[in-house]
């Protein structure tokens, strides 16, 4: 797939970047498949007590998907910026589907292990988080970027600062407030 059509992927990605939402619809299945295939690779050697290396996975998916040459990434920062946004879309989309299933929109999935069923209590409600991030973006887009990079792309504070070209302090402050504010928003929604 990606071996023959990175150019196509790149075109879609650029189109999406330029605001074409339909491009994402075409993009996502390919990204999923790539993620899936990689996760299988990881899982094949994985012990149950091991976690997936989130940022490694994201990077690999990207490198495979995207013709880095054509993307003319201005730099590493640009690369991470775009990939963080895409990860947010992918994961939120997953979460939406799960919500849909839980609300009875579909037949309940057979889980491999009922105990591992992802309940809202244990993990972040990504759909609500997405909504809250959209609200935050109206007044403070940089904080949204910080959350995308830290939470969705798995970058450290230092890496985030590098990507956004701001000081460590700024990232730390943005992160501190964004966390608390978003948490509060999610509590509101959940109550």
């Amino acid at each position, binding site marked *: 797939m990606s071996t023959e059509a990175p150019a196509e992927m790149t075109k879609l990605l650029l189109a999406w970047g330029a605001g074409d939402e339909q491009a994402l619809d075409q993009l996502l299945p390919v990204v999923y498949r790539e993620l899936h*295939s990689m996760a299988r690779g990881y899982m094949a*050697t994985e012990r149950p007590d091991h976690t997936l290396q989130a940022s490694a996975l994201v990077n690999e998916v990207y490198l495979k998907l995207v013709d880095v*040459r054509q993307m003319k990434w201005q730099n590493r920062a640009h690369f991470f910026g775009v990939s963080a946004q895409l990860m947010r879309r992918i994961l939120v989309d997953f979460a939406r589907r799960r919500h849909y299933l839980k609300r009875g929109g579909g037949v309940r999935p057979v*889980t491999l292990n009922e105990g591992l069923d992802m309940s809202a209590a244990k993990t972040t409600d990504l759909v609500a988080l997405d909504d809250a991030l959209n609200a935050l973006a109206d007044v403070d887009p940089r904080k949204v970027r910080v959350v995308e990079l830290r939470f969705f792309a798995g970058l450290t504070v230092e890496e985030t600062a590098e990507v956004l070209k701001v000081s460590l302090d700024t990232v730390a402050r943005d992160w501190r407030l964004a966390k608390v504010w978003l*948490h509060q928003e999610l509590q509101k929604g959940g109550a």
Partner: protein
Amino acid sequence: MKLARWRQLESLYNKALEMDESRRVEFLREACAGDGELRHDVERLLAARPAAASFLEQPALQEIAHDFGATAELFHQYWIGRQVGNYQFLSLAGVGGMGEVYRARDTKLKREVAIKVIPDEFSRDPERISRFQREAQVLASLNHPNIAAIYDLEELNGSRFLILEMVEGETLADRIQRGPIPVEEALKIALQIAEALEAAHEKNVIHRDLKPANIKVTAEGTVKVLDFGLAKALADERTAEDTTKPLLSMAATSPGVILGTAAYMSPEQATGKAVDRRADIWAFGVVLYELLTGRMLFSGGTISETIAAVMMKEPDWDTLPANLPARARDLLQRCLTKEPRNRLRDIGEARIAIEEVQSGAEVDGDVAQTPGRLKSKVLVGIAAALLLMMIVSLAALSVRYFNRATPPEIRVEVSTPSTDDPTSFAISPDGRNLVFLASHESKSQLWLRPLDSVAAQPLPGTDGASYPFWSPDSASVGFFADGKLKRIDIAGGALQVLTNVTAGRGGAWSPEGTIIFSANLGPLFKVPATGGERVAVTRLETGQAGHRFPQFLPDGQHFIYFAAPAQQGVYVGSIGGGSAKRLANADAAAVVSYSGFLLFPRQGTLFAQAFDFKRQELSGNPFPVAEQVAFGALTNAPGFSAASGIVAYRTGSGRSGVLLAGGGLARQLTWLDRSGKSVGVVGAPDAAGLTDVELSPDGKRVAVYRTVNGNQDVWLIDAARGVPKRFTFDPLLDSFPLWSPDGNRIAFQSVRRGVQNLYWKLSSGAGTDDLLLETDQNKAPTDWSSDGRFLLFRSLDPQTGFDLWVLPVSGDKKPFPFLKSASEEREGQFSPDSKWIAYQSNESGRSEIYVQPFPGTGGKFQISANGGAQPRWNKNGKEIFYVSLDSKMMSAPVKLSPDGQSLETGTPAVLFPVRIAGGPLSGIFRQQYAVSSDGQRFLVNLAAAEGAASPITLIYNWKPKP
């Protein structure tokens, strides 16, 4: 939310946090000055901090995919609810080796179906897909009530789906777990299995993977055999077509495809012989036995024990239920005859036998004529003496086969995909895993093959790896890649870089967490397995160029290694230093079997000799273990590995078993045009490890180096006639030739003074080899400026790795560095006007091509974008060629300004995929291609067609026979 309001909130929140907690209330009261709402909001945020402390702190993907099950589910979720063709995915029904199976709804025919998602790595191979389609047509034609039907093959966005009959019910595997099945019921089930097999065999379809997990029984008692022929359909082309390939190996080349488990394999399958319908008959026998007894017929803790049982062990007939009719017992014995020629020929006979048993007809006689087998009725009348004889012979059998203290020695072949380096493999100390280097989809990386499964998987992040070695706990693998020593945890795949090593030649890992490794030339070093400073642990003796391929003795303090060229052989050294001790002469490095033996190659044969680890002495005589064992003639790498009770080895190509530099494949100098079409060859396929391609300025001769009779020298090949002529004659290694711009001289590198120094000689061959540059670092010439004034060379600094230096050929001849940094700068090439130098560097973490002005300072320009190696200029100065990391010949346009101050670069374009010898990044080698002066043709050192590498043979329960 208003922007101004948010700013206020943010500012107050931050200020409040920066002050002492006791002052906050006061501060907020003043700052908010009557705006109660604002104050409330800030206070609420401050109060919410503890609750939000861990919020978002774990990356989203990690949080969601916090373990195996959840990760799998995450991805399975993707399909659920989606529509493919007429099919609506409902839920996940199961996960198997051949991918996931979903329950789905056929919206047109209003019925439920099962959908198998074909693994991606399979879907991407058009050849396999088209073959699969052909196979699927045959399988779809199997129309039988006891065979789960294949309805359809669907495709969506590149994913492929097999639409299958949905069979409700439990598998026989589940059923057997609950205990034996009564004879009558078991025979009913067996009859339906036999009918299914009969129908398939009539259409020449063999199941190949019949086992209880593949057989379901519905609530009504109807048996459905699943996955008919899928094993073959999904297998890799080469191995599937060639039925002589061991079944075990098929999955090794087809990731994720699990072809049944060893316990149901027929003896001929287990030993890799041709598979026909008799394999199904055998498996049918095993299934019937298990139905009747409720236990596994052949089982063992490991795959080797299981295979040993399949091949050697006589089934325990006594556990069969006493009320089993003699005829059924006979049938079982006929099915489970190890020699396929004597096995039941036709599954139809089984069907007839079961039907007769069921109808109560006691037919006097066998299922069919059975030469050499006693009829049960005759047995009754046999004399007591004969019975006694049988008991005696059975006893003898049991001594031979059942004595678990000395299980039989077994050799099993494991095929792997092709590889550039057949010596790069290692078996884990616990004997459970095999790691090997393999090339797949033009990517050379480490693959992991758990030996209790039949599937191998690539280890992500190990591209370009070489010489893997295991941690003592078998949990991690050390290896060399990208000029670094790295380690990877096989569970989880966590990667760690330990230290820089340009061309690693083997490593070893002690129980105390010390890794010793070879940096090709020079002594062995040690480094903590967690990374850190390297310290030399051996000292080169006079005439030794390098110590290589260490392995620890059981005490974790002493280790063996190989030293050459002077006093070549296997030595014992110690982590604490101290003097080395020579153990044995050998053609390449040795390995230690912890059962007390040293294994080493001599004249193509793998020998073992008793080794007293305490006294570090050999005793007794060496005795042969295997013939034609592989080893690296230049690398000294052993083509074998040992673990507890297991010896693994590869056989080498050629009479002596010697493998050549970078692998055992022949190489062919081939002219390719810009589209990659072959337009001629130079000389014949070369089995002498031909390396580096340097075209003379007049294009009439090619300088390379080759190894003949163990002696590496520079050779010149007449481009028209293809005849190689030896150019250097020193008994020590001569390599890396380079033409002077006028074609009159050839510079090269030689180790004749211990270090790789630069020499030159008239290209006519007349005169002597003259020393050009002597330093204490190993170096190789990479290019010569067109005016003949400067020779560019790479120098291997122990601290900074490869650096690029310039040697003024005339005048003071005092070399000066061009690029010296902690990254690896190498393969420098002057632009035609000598004002620029293109080179290869891994400074970004990946090998890329850059250009910098020469000699002055100035900007650096990146030429490659997605990784690159082996740069060459087009003589017109408008183009730089390089090899991409996925093995494509690339062309990058460049526009040089005459003042040597600026450079415009363009987007590199793919010219053609190229199977360049050694791969794009190949240890210490330079460019494996040259460009014709018109820039239209490439003389490429091509690796011979990729064949499957010779298989790795595993000797289980190795019994030393001194």
